[in-house]
């Protein structure tokens, strides 16, 4: 049995972690937040591109390194840990959509740019409160023209291209839109995450290409869920370390607050939730890599458990810090806000726990 990441994948992860330790983190996130003209940290983006992080999943024939899911997952974890203020996760999702559903021409057109950092991609599914990632979007395709509004779309204001969901013939499907077209309108939308830029993509008969089938879209949701669960794990771990470090130093009533069970049990619960989520995320990474039919349930469980872990930890991190944690100057807000961003990126917990149970029901029925 070998339910662990390969040494090669770990080495790549360590490299990414070292780079982000130096350049990213809450301070870099704060710098982006404080500068209204700055949507992301271009230096970090450049560094990540040089390290090959955008090329990981791009096949060699398109200028990438053609690595597997394991490497992509561990990089996503480091992006989450470093609160990296650059459009790496969005571009990863864009890449996965092309890998699953893109034609040879579509891949040849976009993936080399992803690998060399000249293309920033994004993914949009949201259309308002009644929309779930799996429900039929209002966005329609007619005569090669796409009409609809997607919002909020992470990194849309800085992206060159987007994959968005639209009403396909037999369910929601993906379409590919070149955002450099004059008629593709992107406006900045303010969200609860003050670091990662979000946009509204307004399309009125904008030329767009279908990207695969509705089954491809469902597979895409699974892979995206696994990648985002690793991002969540990274963010969760960083928030937990922040809380634990504070509990070791802060003194109240003559002792370090980490001695109090009311505090340490919260820290232990962060760890328990984090490790449960990690086990499911690893299961997801395995199923993704192996192309296993278990991917649907593994991805949904990874997504649900990782949202539980990152949400709980982000909330309790503020609580453990007390008053100082509630200030603008504290870094607690970045984890608190990022947890919301990760949730918004692909549908919230309720959708995914329901999808998990649906896949368990299907599996049970097949087994019977």
């Amino acid at each position: 049995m070998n339910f662990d990441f390969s040494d090669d994948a770990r080495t790549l992860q360590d490299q990414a972690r070292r780079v982000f330790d130096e350049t990213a983190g809450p301070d870099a996130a704060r710098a982006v937040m404080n500068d209204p003209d700055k949507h992301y940290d271009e230096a970090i983006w450049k560094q990540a591109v040089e390290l090959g992080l955008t090329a990981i999943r791009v096949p060699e024939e398109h200028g990438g390194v053609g690595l597997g899911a394991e490497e992509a997952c561990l990089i996503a974890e480091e992006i989450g840990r470093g609160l990296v203020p650059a459009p790496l996760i969005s571009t990863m999702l864009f890449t996965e959509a092309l890998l699953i559903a893109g034609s040879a021409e579509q891949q040849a057109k976009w993936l080399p740019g992803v690998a060399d950092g000249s293309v920033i991609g994004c993914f949009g599914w949201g259309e308002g409160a009644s929309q779930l990632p799996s429900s039929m979007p209002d966005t329609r395709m007619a005569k090669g023209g796409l009409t609809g509004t997607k919002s909020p779309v992470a990194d849309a204001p800085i992206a060159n291209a987007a994959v968005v969901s639209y009403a396909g013939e037999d369910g929601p499907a993906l379409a590919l839109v070149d955002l450099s077209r004059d008629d593709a309108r992107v406006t900045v939308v303010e969200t609860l995450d003050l670091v990662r830029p979000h946009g509204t993509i307004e399309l009125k008969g904008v030329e767009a290409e279908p990207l695969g089938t509705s089954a491809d879209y469902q597979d895409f949701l699974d892979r995206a869920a696994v990648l985002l669960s690793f991002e969540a794990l990274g963010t969760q771990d960083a928030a937990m370390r922040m809380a634990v470090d504070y509990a070791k130093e802060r003194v109240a009533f003559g002792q370090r607050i980490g001695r109090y069970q009311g505090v340490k049990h919260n820290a232990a619960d962060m760890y328990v939730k984090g490790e449960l989520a990690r086990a499911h995320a690893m299961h997801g990474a395995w199923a993704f890599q192996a192309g296993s039919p278990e991917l649907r349930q593994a991805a949904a469980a990874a997504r649900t458990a990782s949202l539980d872990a990152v949400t709980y930890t982000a909330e309790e991190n503020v609580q453990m810090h007390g008053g100082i944690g509630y200030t603008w100057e504290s870094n607690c807000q970045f984890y608190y806000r990022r947890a919301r961003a990760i949730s918004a990126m692909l549908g919230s917990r309720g959708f995914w726990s329901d999808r998990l149970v649906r896949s368990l029901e299907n599996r049970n029925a097949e087994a019977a």
Partner: protein
Amino acid sequence: MDFNDTAEEAAYREKVRAWIAENTKEYEGQGAAKTNEEFVARQKSWQKKKYDAGYAGITWPKKFGGQGKGPMESIIFSQEEGKSAAPTGLYAIGLGMCIPTVFTHGSQEVVDRFVPVALEGEEIWCQLFSEPAAGSDLAGIRTKAEKDGDEWVINGQKVWTTNAHLCDYGIIVTRTDPSAPKHKGLTMFIVDMHSEGVEARPLKQMSGGSDFNEVFFDDVRVPDAWRLGDEGQGWQVALTTLMNERLAVGGKPRYSPDWRALLNLAKEIETVLGPASEQADVREEIAKAYINDHGVKLTQQRALSALSQGKTPGPEQSISKVVVAKQMQEISRIALDLSESQGFVKAEPGSELDRFQSSYFGAAGLRIAGGTDEILRNIIAERVLGLPGDLRPPKDTPFNELKPV
């Protein structure tokens, strides 16, 4: 990544599977044992077969009669044994915890006398640790042992002793120097459970069952040669036992229902809104059960992977019991609630509802046994995350001068 056996593991699994299949035929279709004697006889016969075939003490060193193999072989054997009709359980504590303590800390004479017979299954062992006033805080035990020539005289009471009424020997932790600091005045011994002055009384649990005993010691004499470790070293010796306990306890009891049982139950319950399994709150609970049950299983597979590759498992193993016990309580309560008035009426023995009812009570015990939820959270916070421990009285305070703060 993969979940497959290595070639060697697969070959070993194949071999033990065939042997187990061949040797468990006589236990197939046997109902539960009707008497203690019948229960013990079945367990003894299976242990003897394993011993004769070289499947007992798989990880133990060869010089103690073991097979000197790695943890994976032992795990593979247990997995295959668990799928068979083999009668197991009686030796879990004795061979899992007591005897490893005996061969780590006992004299050569003691090892020669006790270890082979125990492995063969001839003598059954129990662990005499907890006391009415010392559970989580085990080092606070009060059972006394006083030296009298070449012997020690034991007086006091133990509690929560599994199978004490069926056992031949036990390992007991006693206080030999009340004027020494709490952790320094303890000494461990082997005690003959048939000797004069030992009385095991079944303890009735709130579930109605009796899986444990209270054991009373009234001037019980043990030879000094049966001491395990030096006088005053009992705490260090007990830690060996407890470390082995961590390996033995942790998973979820086999009878305990999992997410599948809740899903199946919810599908069958018709409400005015349709099957209960279509209701959002119920689906939420099924999802939670899967995340906890399967998450623990996957976490165990991470540990197995480490063992399979000759590495040390990471600290994530420490989450298992704290997740499993509470989840077992929750899933059972939710099933009883879903069953409404029927869930409250004593169910037909052996029925699915009966499993939920007994798990609801069993879980209340599991959250306490082998480390309470609270102690396990302390361990995670202190040993894994490095938070400071509770404030305690100064370490050098004599035990008999300790006062509650």
